[in-house]
């Protein structure tokens, strides 16, 4: 089974079969991120499609030395989902879907099983690192990353001074960076 970097090389050469395999491997995670940001299922399918389409069109922009493939992919997914969310601006008027985030990936295909092993480990590390942050810093990261609010908007939403929000963003990101590094080293 080809790894992600190999699949991307095939994508760069226009290999549609590799594109299908890449989609099969990562669509659950892209779907989850889009669902987490949009919180409504209506637009998620379009975001998933646009995310993978951007991968196909911009494969050459992926920098092998900089990020893992899935990190690049999820960055695109987040950006597309936030873009759609900003356009729609319906979130605050609509309740959350009750079952969001509760559906677990069912193992089955070879590519999904491979994705499960790696992403499960990454998920474990991310959750452990987040758990070590103070609640107010976690909340700021949530608003920033999944709701796409600027620092001023977070200050407005939370009623906290802008300076406090900026300090929390800085502190949270630096702690997260440090903890992720340590947790990844420990996992090796």
């Amino acid at each position, binding site marked *: 089974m080809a790894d992600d970097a190999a699949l*991307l090389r095939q994508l760069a*050469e*226009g290999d*549609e079969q590799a*594109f*299908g395999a890449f989609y*099969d491997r990562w*669509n*659950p*995670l892209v779907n*989850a991120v889009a669902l*987490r940001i949009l919180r409504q299922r209506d637009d998620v*399918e379009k975001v998933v*499609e646009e995310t*993978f389409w*951007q991968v*196909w*069109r911009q494969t*050459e*922009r*992926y*920098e*092998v*030395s*900089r990020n893992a493939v899935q*990190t*690049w992919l*999820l*960055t695109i997914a*987040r*950006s*597309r989902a936030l873009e759609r969310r900003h356009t729609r601006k319906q979130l605050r008027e609509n309740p959350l879907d009750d079952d969001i*985030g*509760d*559906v*677990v*990936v069912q193992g089955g295909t070879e590519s999904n099983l491979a*994705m*499960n092993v790696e*992403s499960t480990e*990454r*998920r474990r*590390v*991310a959750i452990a690192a987040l758990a070590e942050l103070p609640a107010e810093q976690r909340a700021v*990261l949530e608003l*920033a*990353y999944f709701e*796409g609010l*600027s*620092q001023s908007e*977070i200050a407005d939403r939370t009623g906290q001074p802008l300076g406090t929000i*900026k300090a929390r*963003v*800085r502190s*949270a*990101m*630096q702690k*997260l*960076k440090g903890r*992720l590094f340590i947790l990844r080293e420990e996992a090796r």
Partner: protein
Amino acid sequence: MTGERTAHEKARQALEALALDVLDVKDQAGVLTHLASCASCRNELAALQATAAQLSYAVRPVQMSDSQRDRVRALLLDRAAADDAPTPDGRTVPEPHPTPSFHILFPHTPAEETLPHKNAKTATTWVAVAACIVALVSAVTLVRVRRERDTFFTAYQIALARNALVDSLRVSLEERNRLVVNLTGSHVAVINLVSNSVASLSARMFWDQSANVWTFVAHNVPAHKTGRTYQLWLVTAKSKISAGTFAPGLNGDAIARATYALPKSALIAVAVTDEPAQGSAQPTSIPILVGVNSTR
């Protein structure tokens, strides 16, 4: 040198927000400009962007329904097949979106490996660098233009607010001037009102006979009961004419104004009664204030 260091420190403090893409627009121009010339900050930004991306992993993967997954898959493969086919005029299909990363703003270092593009066989490094510079300049210009637009808009709003304030003060001043004339003019008759029930209560009616304006001023007026109000009456031989209702302020002072034409000799007295909140067509209670017109 100090300026560069300050810019570096300011940019450094904004990198976390920039990595999360939550830096306020007004703060972006300075940071982006600094990043163009600071490899250290670019590396830190890349590390922070990788950190931010890890937040996505905290979300539990969610499988799409089979039909949904297959539908999107089929759509993507169809688009990919069409994308590979040459277009009738030989042009390539435009890209859907820019990559959501600040990496595209800066030239790649030689150590960074990128994948060849299926539609860009002749691309060279200097073209990429030039494109990046153009992108950077465009981004900075865009931010600057937006900032200037915001500044002008804010100044415009302030000017509008100032004009509104000046207009409001002018109206208020004209109103005060009219009041002074209605109280002190040569054609103003003054009627003193007294109370039999509240010793400290006193009032005066200023009747500007040239303008038919009535100005009633009272002091130490007790607060009226819930559902009640005070009503002012112009008493003539034939009728009692309502000049409106009023309520005292917290300090017990009250002022009421009315415009009503009345022959000089017609007014016998001015009175105030306690009435239901909506007022009455005719007095329904004994007056708490009465003033006889002694100028008839």
